[in-house]
């Protein structure tokens, strides 16, 4: 078997396609690295500036009083840019990178402009940013996901389309099978040979890419990032072996190598290029979308309903304490309703996207795209994790405010109302800080199904190739 593998590799190393592949992959990977080095520092700088600004808000509010912090909340939350952005850009320009903290609403003011009835902060999730200012041509990013998903798969077909049909045409297949080698050994030898000879230029290109990126002092890769890179590399090999297996399957069944290449190309075009977009368009038309205007119009009845519920208590000039409590409940419930409404909208959209993802998973290219996005810490799943983090932090901060207020003996412990809360400034250092963290094991969990599906594809195609080759007459 090793003989066959070795022979295949030697064969390939000397060929024109090997040289062309190396040049192509190197060019793509170098472009990718250069672009990343040019853009990533800017991205990080933008993130840092935004975070500093939002921390300043937090500090100002904490220095003012506990009440101000409870009313205005922290500053906006920003998504930390992934250092592995060069692996998959994951719809970055479209996905929002912020979860906003809404200013407290004002329901009523008196003649002097004093706020009689207001509210407290709530989280709001901005929609995808479709206000595209870019009028340039529509092209995809040259990231690893593109290089592996499109180029490497094409190269895999390019290396395998004549694996059997070519030898059959030359007559060397008979020669080989005349020796006492079982057919499955021939198949595995061919498979490994092709995979290894594709891996050589790919590894070379990846090394150059990673070398360029890691030696630049503007980008810092952590151990965690290196581990993720390793996983992505393994994914690339798995994905490539899928197309190698496909190439072997078709090549074993078809007599002429030209026909074999044509079938492969047409299959490739259908599954890799067209399937993802067509299926996504189909999936998006399944459920009606609520428009932006409709979403905002829902707010009005909700507020009216809330007002009806509390109006008697709020208007009553009974005990001041009771009125304050009613106010507090009103504020809190309004913020909760607002957040629930926002969350429901986000959930609805998320479920739509998940459905679209499930449908497009028929295409191995989308599977790979999702997997790489998942492990590179970009894309939609990452966005959901970020939203999750902000929600957790919001709860934490509210608890912190309640606890601090409880510690102040002068306060009435009625949260969210000026008269009912501690007005002492608190030290900004004691306020918990928001941290946008990524969890590798969580990424694994979300990716598990897709990973299994991809492996299954590979196994099915490999056994298909085996069956086809065993039965074929030489």
């Amino acid at each position, binding site marked *: 078997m090793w003989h066959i593998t070795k022979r295949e590799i030697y064969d390939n190393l000397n060929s024109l*396609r090997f040289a062309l592949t190396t040049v192509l992959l190197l060019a793509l990977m170098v472009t990718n690295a250069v672009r990343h080095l040019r853009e990533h520092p800017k991205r990080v700088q933008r993130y840092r500036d935004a975070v500093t600004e939002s921390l300043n808000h937090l500090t100002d509010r904490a220095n003012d009083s506990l009440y101000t912090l409870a009313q205005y909340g922290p500053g906006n939350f920003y998504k930390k840019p992934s250092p592995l952005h060069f692996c998959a850009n994951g719809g970055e320009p479209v996905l929002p990178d912020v979860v906003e903290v809404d200013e407290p609403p004002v329901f009523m003011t008196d003649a002097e402009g004093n706020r009689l009835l207001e509210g407290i902060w709530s989280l709001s999730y901005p929609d995808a940013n479709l206000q595209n200012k870019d009028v340039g041509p529509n092209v995809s990013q040259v990231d690893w996901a593109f290089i592996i998903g499109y180029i490497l798969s094409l190269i895999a077909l390019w290396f395998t389309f004549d694996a059997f049909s070519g030898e059959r045409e030359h007559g060397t297949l008979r020669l080989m099978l005349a020796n006492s080698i079982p057919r499955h050994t021939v198949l595995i030898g061919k498979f490994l040979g092709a995979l290894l000879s594709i891996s050589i230029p790919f590894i070379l290109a990846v090394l150059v890419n990673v070398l360029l990126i890691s030696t630049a002092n503007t980008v810092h890769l952590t151990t965690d990032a290196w581990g993720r890179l390793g996983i992505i590399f393994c994914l690339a090999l798995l994905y490539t072996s899928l197309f190698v297996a496909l190439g072997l399957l078709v090549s074993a069944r078809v007599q002429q190598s030209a026909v074999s290449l044509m079938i492969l190309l047409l299959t490739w075009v*259908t599954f890799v290029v067209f399937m993802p977009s067509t299926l996504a368009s189909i999936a998006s038309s399944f459920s009606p979308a609520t428009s932006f205007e409709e979403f905002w119009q829902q707010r009005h009845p909700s507020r009216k309903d809330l007002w009806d519920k509390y109006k008697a208590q709020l208007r009553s000039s009974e005990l001041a304490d009771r009125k304050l409590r009613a106010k507090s409940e009103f504020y809190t419930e309004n913020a909760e309703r607002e957040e629930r409404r926002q969350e429901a909208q986000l959930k609805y959209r998320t479920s739509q996207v998940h459905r679209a993802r499930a449908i497009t998973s028929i295409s191995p290219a989308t599977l790979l795209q999702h997997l790489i996005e998942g492990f590179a810490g970009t894309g939609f799943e990452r966005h959901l994790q970020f939203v999750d983090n902000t929600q957790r932090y919001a709860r934490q901060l509210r608890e912190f405010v309640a606890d601090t207020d409880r510690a102040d003996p002068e306060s009435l412990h009625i949260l969210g109302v000026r008269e009912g809360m501690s007005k002492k400034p608190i030290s900004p250092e004691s306020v918990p800080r928001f941290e946008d963290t990524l969890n590798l094991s969580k990424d694994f969990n979300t990716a598990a199904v897709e990973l299994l599906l991809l492996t299954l594809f590979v196994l099915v195609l490999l056994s298909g190739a085996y069956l086809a080759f065993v039965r074929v007459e030489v």
Partner: protein
Amino acid sequence: MLKILIRRELLDNLMTFRFAAVLLITLLLVVANTVVLIQDYEQRLKSYNDSVKRHQQELRNSKTYSTAFLFVNRAPNPLSIFNAGLDKRLGNYIGIYHGFMPTLWDARMHGTDNPFIAFFSSIDIVFVFEVILSLMGLIFAYDAIAGERERGTLRLVLAQPIGRGQILLAKYISTMACLLVPLILSLLFALLLLTRSMPLSTADFLRIAGIVLTSFAYLSVFYLIGLLISVATRRTGTALMLAMFIWGFLILVYPNLIRATVSPGGDIQARVKTAHNQIQQILNEYERERQKFLETEGIAGESSEFSKALGFYHQADVNPVTLTTYIENMSVISEIRPDFEKYVPVAKRYYNFVEPLAARTVEKAWRVRKQALEEIYVKQATTDRILLKLSPVGIYDAATQAWTGTDLSGLRDFFYAAQRYRKVVIDYLYAKDAFSSREWFVADKGAVDWRTLPAFTFQRSDVGTNAKRALPDLFLLLICNLVLFMAIVLIFIRSEV
């Protein structure tokens, strides 16, 4: 003799497996995508209609002139099914208002779709053709000469009294005739589906004819590239391999690579800042004049009291990111207190002075803004497009976008129309003496009647204009064809058999 050759080639091509496979795949992809795209178009059309209705309702609800929310909507282009271009990308409704002058970047989107799905990448028929036609051209061409040379039939043909150029011509004509079958057939199916669900005008059919013509030229370029490879190589295996490499490079790698390599030139932040400062100066000038008016009227000291009563609220604001300038005037007062009634004549004079001034100011600011935005966004896009045209895909895409009217100039037409409509609205306001009327800021003595306001209409540019925009690129494709054909003839004549 030429006829015999053509007939032979035609039969050779038609009876092959590859012809059947290509025909099937093209039909399948085009029909499936057309169905999806029509659905998408209908959704967008519905959302457009809803939006128009809502905006009409909003206008009817506005009782005073100054609080009128006037919006114009951009209808989806039915030909965007062929090439979506910028049709789905740029915003599709825009506010029309004397204190605001729109540019290409100010339109907003009426929520049509789940925006999170939108980034899954979009597809259109031209994209299908871009990939499939080029593949078809190369698949049919790679063994045209090299194959015959291998089999030895080339010698046989050349032994006949026939010119080498004629052989090439015969091959070209017959294969292109074959390849036209999937192209035309799939388009016919697409048209059949289209005409069933949306009415297409004669002009649209002419535009589609233009697209077909361009597709034909594009297909021919790739066939000729394949033929060139076939003439230049000895073996079909090598020819096939090279053809596939060139296909992958031209279709997949080059267009994506070139945009990644070319970085936006110049300091954008600095450009934004200068424009921002210029606009701020224009706004300051406006504010000075406004204050001067208030002083000469002798109500400067009272203005806080005055403005509270009559909604004297002017906000001139520049957003540094988009450089948008709004000069807002929102006088939302239901009625005027009797003790403020004495201010009404002053308020009328005030608005009559300040509103035309605001309109002039935003026009001035618009000139600065437009120039800056063009430099920041359009210049880069134009460079990208020119570089893309080094690959036939770029030329084909640009030409078909021009035919469908979804290119930059096609969308600009809409914004020009919106700007013209703003003029119409301002003229209407002047004609009604709106600025100096009581209805400008308060509706207690009768609301504004909007029925006489001329409606906004927008016609897509006529076919002639589309053709004028598409022809340079079409010519470029044709020149590519000619150059390739000449190169092939030259190589073939000199080559030994």
